[in-house]
């Protein structure tokens, strides 16, 4: 019997359609305007601080002002560690001093020039900038002090010029210059108590060059006019500027002192007199038992106290192995003018960092000593110098494996309620910056070591399904448990049942209800501090499209930091290779495999006790950063070679035991070591060595390029390196840029289709390199020129050579190479002084032949039989100054390629290859050229839409590295150098994924609705047909 039609059907269907229409309406209104901050992230780094200034010290400042060796002056929020502002100075603009003055920050910077700036403490914007024309800076000849009466600044630069500047306007009040040709270099200025016959003087302290040593010279200038009052020449023998300390002063009423170490004596001069007091160091420290084992002469430690205080530290290396430091705190007795020991800090193993501050509400000094003698814990010790007792002894967790020793510390104390609160800022050897606070929640750390990133290796994450075959839900390795088949089966079954709970979520995610129930993802503001908090879920899995990767950075300081390319760049793990490890190379030798985690090889060069070079290799699990030790004798997690590093590269051999790619390491004895050294690997290497060619130590500044080959002799086990070819560059030329084709590149199309459907075939040599040399000072008065060489790295022949004359050699020259293309940029001065100057981007394309439809018939390519390529070249004016160059890479190489430029204006620009096509017609395009869709010749466009970094300031990009994803359209772009910026880029637009706007829910609901309608109407139709049969 057929069901009778439901009576409310019409109402139901109307309701259903109404809901459907409403849904469509809502999805339209939820359009995502911008993806900024969702698909990309940007870490703003400043580098490791080595100077700090606090604007207020009574109630505690909101922020700490720091200067770093990356030439950055920054303000960091004291409570949270967030970056409030920063001033990124030019590459050679060293920060000499920062100082808090009248609530703002004064900075002394420069190398070839000199700048005094007053930076606003809230915004970092300069109120004024004073830069004397024609003056620079010298190594230690910069100092600043402020006068007590009017709060103006006394500034010293270049070791010779003393100025008084109005602190409000930056106007010069007076200028005193040392006599030209003077043998004295001044290093400090101090306002202090005047001598008889003078009022309000400023002392300028200098070191006069003598035959064997320096002698101290003190110049007294009138504070109001800058007139020279008197010069004191103090008879003394000083070895170096570090042996002199300026103490006290800071007011016309206070005594100023100079303390210096002269052989076995500590001498102290009261400024305004010419007779120093003298104490014998041995006598002075005779009461201190720790100094009995003194290994090296005592040195001063500058505590960074403000003017007016006369406390200072004397420290010395002690201990049997020169591995401990002992230190005493001294203070100058105002009546005798001699220094007395007021506190003995005792002996501590390892490095100590020191800082001092004034205890708020008093005139007393608190001194901080930060040190560690435990791998997990560091100790912060604060001593009240007046009461001569420890006021704070705090153990803080500080992993030696990640941070090692202290390099800099800054102590801040402020009153809160009744008590005194302490904040300690410190840098560690790896480059990171930390803060300790009495208030637990206000301790933080910034992984500033990322500012020193020099290389990155991108690791693909393992697939979840594969991973679970080896590791169960609890993270246990299956094979280790040794279970029966039944137990295995039960476990698998239960794990599948467990996974069922994810089913609804999976179904929902498949239907993408995000556009239904939630709004489009919104970029949440975050700070670099949060990424240090390790809250990444382990183990890590790949996402659906392989967009999530691990970026392993190696830094100049010897640290490895693994960063999640998603999740705003959370730090997954970090590891500091302790002192002296110069990380030369990091190579992924095994990608995530069915059963095995990815393995990273780290090759570092160190020195042993006898100053001999040692090359060390570590194998790490790239997911955890831990040593990867499989227990196999031939695969140790750490190994070493007693020789220096020359080169390390992957061979196209996989070892059968561990499925790692075999590494070839060439050391400076010209020996080859393969890793691992098992029998099958050796056999494979011997078979390969016939066809293996490599270059060594190609670096900027080189004068030639050489190729090498491995010699494997049957008699010995040793494998040596033999030079096969050398390309010496002409006199005066040296390498300024190098580029090689990325090894992982896939060439999808072998030719280029022309307008008439003919083909010119691409040059398919994978083994050629681009070398650009510059002659910066040619003879015969020529302007500097550069020469571009394309060199076959197998046989050393020059495939192509071009010279550009009138090049600005001081500008950065960059080159990149991909497929059959080479792109390089340089600054052109133009032929004459009046011709146009500017950056030029040159594009080269290499083809097998200049004739269309001509292909050399062969299935193989050998450099020894190949002919020279046909090269098409064109240069384009480029309006940007680039500091880094990269190119997008995709999985199959089908998508168009964008050339990525890191610009010196702190942004990243993507230029499509079509704009850098040397075949662009320079006259009106013909029909064939139009058919080929060539864009008529024009300069490289300068469009705001080409900037990947939109309005972000990505400071000092040194490298741009890209990695393909499982989506052919999309590339992961990593730009680093100081800041780290990671984004996804699709050069041909995202043609392989549905548009964000595409409403999957709408589609699914429509299908569901149709199915429902079908379900309802089908019985009706059947019913009707049946009735029709009856009548």
């Amino acid at each position, binding site marked *: 019997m057929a069901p009778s039609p439901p009576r409310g059907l019409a109402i139901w269907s109307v309701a259903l359609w109404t809901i459907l229409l409403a849904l469509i309406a809502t999805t339209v209104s939820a359009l995502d305007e911008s993806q900024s901050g969702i698909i990309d992230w940007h870490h703003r780094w400043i580098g490791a601080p080595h100077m700090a200034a606090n604007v207020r010290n009574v109630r505690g400042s909101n922020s700490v002002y720091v200067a770093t060796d990356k030439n950055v002056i920054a303000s960091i929020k004291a409570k949270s560690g967030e970056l409030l502002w920063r001033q990124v100075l030019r590459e050679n603009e060293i920060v000499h001093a920062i100082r808090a003055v009248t609530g703002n920050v004064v900075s002394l910077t420069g190398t070839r020039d000199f700048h005094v700036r007053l930076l606003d403490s809230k915004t970092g914007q300069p109120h004024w900038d004073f830069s004397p024309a024609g003056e620079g800076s010298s190594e230690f000849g910069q100092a600043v002090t402020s006068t007590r009466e009017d709060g103006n600044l006394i500034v010293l630069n270049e070791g010779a010029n003393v100025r008084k500047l109005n602190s409000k306007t930056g106007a010069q009040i007076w200028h005193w210059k040392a006599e030209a040709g003077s043998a004295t270099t001044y290093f400090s200025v101090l306002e202090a108590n005047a001598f008889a016959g003078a009022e309000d003087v400023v002392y300028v302290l200098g070191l006069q060059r003598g035959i064997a040593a320096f002698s101290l010279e003190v110049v007294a200038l009138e504070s109001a006019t800058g007139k020279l009052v008197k010069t004191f020449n103090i008879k003394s023998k000083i070895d170096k500027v570090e042996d002199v300390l300026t103490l006290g002063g800071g007011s016309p009423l206070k005594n100023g002192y100079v303390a210096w170490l002269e052989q076995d004596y500590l001498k102290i001069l009261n400024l305004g007199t010419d007779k120093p007091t003298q104490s014998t160091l041995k006598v002075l420290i005779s009461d201190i038992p720790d100094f009995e084992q003194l290994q090296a002469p005592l040195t001063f430690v500058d505590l960074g106290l403000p003017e007016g205080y006369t406390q200072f530290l004397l420290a010395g290396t002690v201990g049997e192995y020169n591995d401990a430091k002992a230190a005493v705190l001294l203070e100058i007795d105002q009546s005798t003018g001699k220094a007395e020991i007021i506190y003995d800090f005792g002996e501590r193993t390892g490095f100590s960092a020191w800082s001092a501050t004034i205890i708020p509400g008093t005139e007393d000094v608190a001194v901080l000593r930060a040190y560690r003698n435990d791998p997990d814990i560091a100790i912060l010790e604060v001593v009240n110098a007046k009461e001569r007792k420890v006021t704070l002894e705090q153990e803080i967790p500080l992993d030696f494996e990640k941070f090692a020793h202290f390099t800099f510390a800054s102590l801040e104390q402020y009153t809160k309620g009744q008590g005194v609160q302490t904040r300690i800022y410190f840098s560690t050897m790896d480059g990171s910056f930390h803060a300790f606070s009495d208030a637990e929640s206000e301790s933080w750390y910034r992984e500033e070591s990322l500012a020193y990133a020099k290389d990155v290796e991108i690791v693909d994450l393992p697939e979840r399904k594969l991973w679970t075959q080896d590791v169960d839900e609890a993270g246990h390795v299956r094979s280790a448990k040794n279970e029966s088949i039944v137990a295995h089966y039960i476990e698998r079954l239960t794990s599948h049942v467990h996974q069922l709970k994810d089913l609804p979520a999976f179904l929902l995610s498949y239907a993408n209800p995000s556009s239904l129930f939630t709004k489009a993802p919104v970029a949440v503001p975050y700070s670099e501090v949060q990424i240090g908090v390790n809250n990444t879920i382990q183990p890590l899995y790949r996402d659906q499209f392989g967009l999530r990767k691990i970026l392993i950075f190696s830094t100049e300081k010897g640290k490895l930091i693994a960063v999640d390319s998603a999740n705003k760049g959370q730090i997954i793990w970090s590891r500091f290779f302790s002192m002296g490890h110069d990380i030369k190379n990091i190579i992924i030798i095994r990608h995530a495999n069915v059963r095995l985690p990815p393995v990273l090889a780290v090759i570092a060069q160190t020195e042993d006790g006898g100053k001999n070079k040692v090359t060390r290799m570590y194998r790490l699990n790239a997911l955890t950063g831990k040593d990867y030790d499989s227990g196999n004798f031939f695969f140790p997690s750490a190994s070493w070679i007693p020789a220096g590093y020359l*080169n390390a*590269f*992957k*061979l*196209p051999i996989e070892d059968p035991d561990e499925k790692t790619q075999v590494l*070839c390491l060439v050391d400076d004895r010209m020996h080859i070591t393969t890793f691992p050294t098992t029998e099958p690997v050796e056999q494979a290497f011997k078979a*390969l060595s016939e*066809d*293996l*060619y*490599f*270059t060594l130590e190609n670096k900027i500044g080189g004068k030639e390029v050489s190729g090498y080959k491995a010699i494997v002799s049957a008699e010995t086990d040793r494998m040596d390196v033999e030079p096969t070819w050398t390309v010496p560059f002409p006199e005066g030329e040296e390498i300024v840029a190098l580029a090689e084709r990325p090894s992982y590149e896939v*060439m999808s*199309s*072998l*030719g280029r*289709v*022309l307008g*008439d*459907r*003919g*083909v010119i075939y691409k040059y*398919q*040599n*994978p*083994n050629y390199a681009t070398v650009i040399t510059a002659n910066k000072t040619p003879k015969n008065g020529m302007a500097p020129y550069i020469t571009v060489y394309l060199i076959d*790295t*197998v046989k050393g022949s020059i495939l192509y050579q071009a010279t550009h004359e009138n090049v600005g050699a001081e500008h950065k020259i960059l080159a990149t190479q991909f497929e059959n293309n080479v792109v390089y940029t340089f600054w052109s001065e133009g032929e004459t002084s009046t011709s146009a100057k500017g950056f030029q981007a040159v594009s080269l394309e290499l083809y097998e032949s200049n004739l*269309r*439809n001509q292909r050399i018939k*062969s*299935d*193989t*390519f*050998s*450099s*020894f039989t190949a002919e020279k390529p046909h090269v098409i070249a064109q240069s384009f004016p480029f309006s940007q100054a680039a500091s880094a160059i990269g190119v997008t890479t995709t999985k199959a190489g089908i998508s168009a390629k964008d050339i990525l430029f890191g610009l010196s204006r702190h942004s990243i620009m993507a230029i499509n290859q079509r704009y850098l096509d040397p075949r662009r017609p320079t006259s009106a395009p013909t029909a064939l050229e139009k058919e080929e869709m060539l864009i008529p010749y024009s300069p490289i466009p300068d469009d705001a839409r080409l900037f990947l970094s939109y309005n972000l300031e990505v400071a000092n990009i040194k490298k741009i590295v890209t990695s393909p994803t499982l989506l052919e359209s999309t590339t992961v772009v990593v730009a680093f150098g100081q800041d780290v910026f990671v984004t996804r880029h699709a050069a041909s637009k995202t043609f392989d994924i549905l548009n964000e706007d595409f409403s999957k829910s709408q589609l699914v609901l429509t299908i569901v609705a149709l199915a429902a309608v079908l379900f309802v109407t089908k019985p009706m139709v059947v019913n009707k047909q049946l009735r029709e049969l009856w009548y």
Partner: protein
Amino acid sequence: MAAHNWKFDFAAPEPKRTIVDPPGFSGLKDVASKNQGNRGPVVDNELLKVKKAWDVALAPGKQLPMQAFMLWMSGNSVQIFSVAITAMLMFSPIKALMSMSQVFERYETPSPVKVSFMDSKLALPKVTFVALQLLTILFGMYKLNAMGLLPTSHSDWLAFMDPKTPLEYAA
């Protein structure tokens, strides 16, 4: 199974004719022998058939100028209109060739003896018909080529080429 109550025996003719023929029925006569004496119209019919067959055979040729004009009008770009016209140009001759025997069937003179194709009177029209249809196909091919849809150039085979294997490995 029901029993046979009645039956006709078709093998034996009716023994006796009892029913009168209907009016206008002239009775069973030998038609063939009657026609034999009337030869003239038969020859005319044959000629007419051949003439008709020639008309049919030349019809595709008469369409060619019109089709050429349409091809010229539709342009060489790959668009739905030009593709539709070209497809029509390609498929209609094939269809016509397939149904050729039916087209010429009614002009066929049944012959008791087997006549070889070349001796038959329709041979020439048929060959002409096929040639003209092939010409139309060629027209379509020319159009396809002009539209760039024929894999005749190097670029069409580029995707199927294998990259060269490098013999040396450089690092």
